[in-house]
């Protein structure tokens, strides 16, 4: 039995310990905010935060996060008003929106690490997250806005 804390709640898993965290979150725990985009840590759609670090849930097993604290988009802020989420809405970032949970989690982790990133640091720090609709200009502006106060 593996115990994981997800968004502050203890969860148990007695299935395959190698199951990617992504599918545990989505199919077993019902937290569908975290998305599947590639399964190979290439696109960042599945980004969650594990102990203050951005992690790709598609190549992280449930066993890898045993006893650790996982935060998903659903747990980022109780009312959805994390500065990154507010900035996202102010800048009207999303088009289809599918990659946005991963982008927001990556941005939140980036700002924990570097509260005042330069534009180049934002572009570099967010480069692991693909947006096929092409919202990058707005993502960059939203991260900048979140870092300067919304």
């Amino acid at each position, binding site marked *: 039995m593996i115990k994981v804390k997800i968004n502050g709640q203890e969860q148990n898993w007695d299935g395959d310990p190698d199951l990617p965290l992504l599918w545990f979150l989505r199919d077993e725990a019902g937290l*569908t905010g975290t998305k599947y985009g590639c399964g190979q840590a290439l696109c960042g759609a599945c980004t969650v935060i594990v102990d203050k670090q951005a992690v790709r849930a598609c190549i992280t097993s449930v066993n890898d996060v045993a006893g650790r604290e996982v935060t998903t988009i659903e747990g980022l802020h109780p009312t959805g008003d994390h500065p990154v989420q507010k900035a996202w809405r102010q800048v009207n970032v999303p088009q289809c929106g599918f990659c946005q949970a991963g982008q927001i989690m990556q941005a939140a982790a980036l700002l924990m690490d570097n509260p005042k990133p330069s534009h180049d640091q934002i572009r570099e720090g967010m480069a692991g997250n693909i947006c096929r609709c092409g919202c990058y200009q707005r993502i960059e502006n939203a991260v900048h806005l979140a870092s300067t106060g919304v």
Partner: protein
Amino acid sequence: MNFIDNPGKLRGFEKNIKVEKVSRRSILKGLGITGGFVLAAPVMSRQALAYETGAGKMPHGVVVDPRVFVSVGSDGIVTIVGHRSEMGTGVRTSLPLIVAEEMEADWSRVKVQQAHGDEVKFGNQDTDGSRSTRHYLIPMRQIGASARTMLEQAAAKRWGVPATEVKAVNHEVVHSASGRKRGFGELAADAAKESVPSIEGLKLKDPKDFRYLGKGQVGIVDLHDITTGKARYGADVRLPGMKYAVIARPPVTGGKLVSFDPDAALKVPGVEKVLKVQGWPWPSKFQPLGGVAVIARNTGAAIKGRDALKLVWDDGPNGKYDSVAYRKELEEASRKPGLVLRKEGDADAALKGADKVIVGEYYVPHLAHVSMEPPVAVADVKGDKAEIWAPVQSPGGTREDVAKTLGIPEGNVTVNVTLLGGGFGRKSKCDFALEAALLSKELSAPVKVQWTREDDIHNGFLHTVSVERIEAGLDKSGKVVAWRHRSVAPSIASTFAAGTVHQAPFEIGMGLVDMPFEIANISCENPEAAAFTRIGWFRSVSNIPRAFAVQSMVGEIAQATGRDQKETLLALIGSPRIVKPEVKDLWNYGEPQDSYPIDTARLRKVVELVAEKGEWGRKVPKGRGLGIAVHRSFVSYIATIVEVAIDDKGKLTVPRVDTAIDCGTYVNPERIASQIEGAAIMGLSLAKYGEITFKDGKVQQKNFDDFQVVRMDDSPVVTNVYIVPPGPDTPPSGVGEPGVPPFAPALINAIFAATGKRIRSLPIGKQLEA
């Protein structure tokens, strides 16, 4: 007031089509349309419209009925149905916003309800072809005006005053003479009893009184849900007792399963069953390819189980498809005469007599859509009833195809449309929903079929592959006097009809025969090309290779004559006029030429606007260059300037993009800007990296590592968008797709300006290195 007064009559539509074995959804794209079958036009009167559109010719036409699209609760909440699929364009917000505008509803008290697939009820629902606003601006205004009129009539009756004395203003009806007011909620029950007014008698708002349309102040309805993880895409649907499935499909299109060994897969923890999936023979239209499904308690287990399957395939007729050899075939075909589609003057003679002939052979490979949400669908089939939840661009077509595939009546199929995690044309094909339906039927349980990214790349409906060869003949003064354009590419029609070797009107009409330049001798030709994989619509479709070729050739002519790119472009466009090419079927994106002519004044205007705003001719540092391109597609006019920077190792970056768009009357300029910003990135992705190749019939790429797209660190630093203000009654035109085509040629022309290198083959890849 339903435009479809006799749905039974509609079913005869297919019989009127002369091309056999072609599905209805292909017909709507223009295949085999023999003309003359106009559905809604007799109902939608000319008096009510400032212009005609092709909306009525779409399957099931247009429905203008407030009872179908609008409901008002006694609490005052106005619910408006969005009947198109949201894949990022903002359509789920903008169409209901049009209704709210016209009915004087307060947007903060409006809820949007997604329509399920039912085209008899809602009219055509195909969300493709950059058509939604184009076809629905006026119908949505009429629906809103009808609802407003009914509310006004109800208030007037209650007060015993003539309806002409009352007016709906911001969610209430006002009788200004007496100062009486009633909220929409209080009037709802009475208004529902009012008869629906005739379209002809409706009074539409004066655009100067618009509160929402054209303003860009309203965010998309799903914004909060998207930023909090609550937005529900196809992948997010969960039903009690639902099984998770992934499918091993034939690695070669048209291949068949010979045998399989499920034993190792069944030992994987969480795997419950391994089943064969029915496939359809090549060309398989939108039907599943078949294969072997692994059923599990979660997707991760299903994927692991599939990895453990032992499979033997017969590759079938396409097992020799090889991109290197195929490219040579296309190139050779482009050097010989082909089916002549447009002939004006005598291009052969004029080329022979020209002072100088410039030849460009341009190559654009297959591309994959790679929407961030790969295809996925949930089905629950019980007896002769089926319910589907899926991110589909064609809810009506999905419903028909599910019914046909399961052999049940269409009325027994419910298609729930979720949000789409990107579409780009891939989700116009409902094969993934059909797979889910077949598996659910077999398992007697709800099933989710999840495509992996590898599946998406290996088994998609790819963008075609093409060689576009242009020969331009110049006289002594440098004026272009001859133009021969041969386009060789497998057609989308090949996915429906075996033996297809020529492109369809809807493909040749994308920048080949509708080429707008003022040249005396023109020949547009289409040599034969057969298909060896599934070809489908990809955002802006054949406009990608056509704009790349035509606008690159403009750059080459400028280069050969030592003239400025923009001046060369304007000289080729020529005088402001309406172009009427001598073509059997111009297609014109399904739109009447009276409302949507090829207008070179508008084409010139976007070039001039982008040149002014984008500071064409500005000095740029060494290693940088500016390029320009313009293209009319989806009846919109778009010009782009790209600034490129290339370092001494050949690394390419884009410091700035400027784009001007004339899309006629528009609804939401903020979403237009987002579409154009995104189109620049998709354009850069395909120009820099985009290539799907085949060897031994199999796609050689598999994921985002070898089919790369632009990431934030190499995306354009700034993209500026300028929207041409519409004239009075200028019909709305496309926005979702037209931004893509001019980007690549503008970039390529900029690369020439920066380096003196002329690139004719996409992607750029390593061509700039060393």
